[in-house]
């Protein structure tokens, strides 16, 4: 039933587009504003999925296995991937769903991400990636290292995430938040217009991430959500014609693209948008580095930071941490650093206005 991959993908793309769920944004906010609202949403997905996955494992629906932790490639690859998603303006899923919104920059990032995933997994860089991934330690899971039941970690994560969510839900902004005027009613308003809450969006994504496990398992692909492997498989299929590589994951990522397109189109949020020269170069470079980084790390923000964390793999949590560090480095280099420099330069002029500021920039 490969078609279940397509359905989960469509649902995921739809929810991510409508909920404005962006992992790059969640990690970037930490460095730009220090805000943890979207990071909390991301952690909700991990916690919800964690409860589901260990329940499925206990019920024997799936059986979680583990392998030695490739620490070197995880650290290096996650840093590269984190750095790259700031350049590309979105992580792997973010790039898929923005491509569905019509952003040509994301089309380019997506093409180069898929291409360099294949180059790194099965192409010219594969021997190097395999060699670096061969540097391992004989430990695989957090609960294994600590010698505790995984349920203890699941409970600790759930409590911590609930406390964070409560903190954000209790916070009141200084002024009421403006919303777009409603033009639709009923279910159309809810699906195609209303601003979805970050945390309710996260709950839905968490449920979809749980469903992905048994549905993918049933087709012989023994994993949860994953983006990089399937993207590489698409390239391999297209250039080598090997239909064997078309698995549940391939249907999933195509579904994300479709779901995001449906959501954007029905909400009046689809338009083919052409990036400027700088954004184009960054999208291509970012996409290529994403492919290399994710292949080294053994997964992207979804496969590693959202799924391997839920199963408490060391690889998942270490990748999660170093992706945030990589995002921080690129944010400082390309976003906050230049912004501070412009503000300092503008502050020197006594009668600066917004329009002068505009002309100074260009």
């Amino acid at each position: 039933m490969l078609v279940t991959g397509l359905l989960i993908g469509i649902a995921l793309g739809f929810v991510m587009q409508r909920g404005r769920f962006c992992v790059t944004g969640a990690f970037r906010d930490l460095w730009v504003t220090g805000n943890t609202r979207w990071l909390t949403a991301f952690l909700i997905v991990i916690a919800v999925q964690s409860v589901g996955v260990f329940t499925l494992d206990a019920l024997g629906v799936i059986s979680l296995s583990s392998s030695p932790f490739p620490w070197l490639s995880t650290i290096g690859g996650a840093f590269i991937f984190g750095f790259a998603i700031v350049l590309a303006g979105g992580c792997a899923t973010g790039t898929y769903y923005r491509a569905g919104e019509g952003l040509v920059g994301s089309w380019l990032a997506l093409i180069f991400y898929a291409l360099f995933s294949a180059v790194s997994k099965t192409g010219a860089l594969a021997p190097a990636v395999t060699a670096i991934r061969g540097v391992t330690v004989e430990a695989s899971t957090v609960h294994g290292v600590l010698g505790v039941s995984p349920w203890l970690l699941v409970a600790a994560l759930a409590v911590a995430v609930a406390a964070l969510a409560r903190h954000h839900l209790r916070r009141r902004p200084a002024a009421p938040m403006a919303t777009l005027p409603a033009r639709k009613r009923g279910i159309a308003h809810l699906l195609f217009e209303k601003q979805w809450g970050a945390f309710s969006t996260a709950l839905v994504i968490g449920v979809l991430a749980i469903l992905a496990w048994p549905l993918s398992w049933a087709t012989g692909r023994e994993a949860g959500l994953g983006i990089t492997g399937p993207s590489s498989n698409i390239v391999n299929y297209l250039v080598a014609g090997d239909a064997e590589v078309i698995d549940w994951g391939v249907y999933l990522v195509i579904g994300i693209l479709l779901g995001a397109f449906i959501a954007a189109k029905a909400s009046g949020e689809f338009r083919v948008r052409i990036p400027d020269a700088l954004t184009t170069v960054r999208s291509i470079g970012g996409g290529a580095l994403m492919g290399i980084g994710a292949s080294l790390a053994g997964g992207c923000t979804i496969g590693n930071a959202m799924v391997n964390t839920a199963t408490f793999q060391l690889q998942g949590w270490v990748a999660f941490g170093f992706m945030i560090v990589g995002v921080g480095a690129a944010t400082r280099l390309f976003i906050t650093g230049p912004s501070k420099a412009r503000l300092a330069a503008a502050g020197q002029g006594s009668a600066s206005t917004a329009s002068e500021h505009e002309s100074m920039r260009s």
Partner: protein
Amino acid sequence: MAQHVLETDGQVCPFPLVEAKEAIALLAIGDELVINFDCTQATDALPRWAADAGYPVTNFDRVGSAAWTITVQKA
């Protein structure tokens, strides 16, 4: 009270927000900043920033397919 316009069409997040912050820093209290943008995620990020900063939003609307405008008053 003066009104200033910031065009960010074609820029992906977080640049509309980053530029809005830079632009509003240079305005006088009471002045309005009109931000035109086409990054979908900014429909969340910009009004949230205004609310957190305590800046009133005097206009927030769609102006076409995947195109929005928001007017933030410096307070």
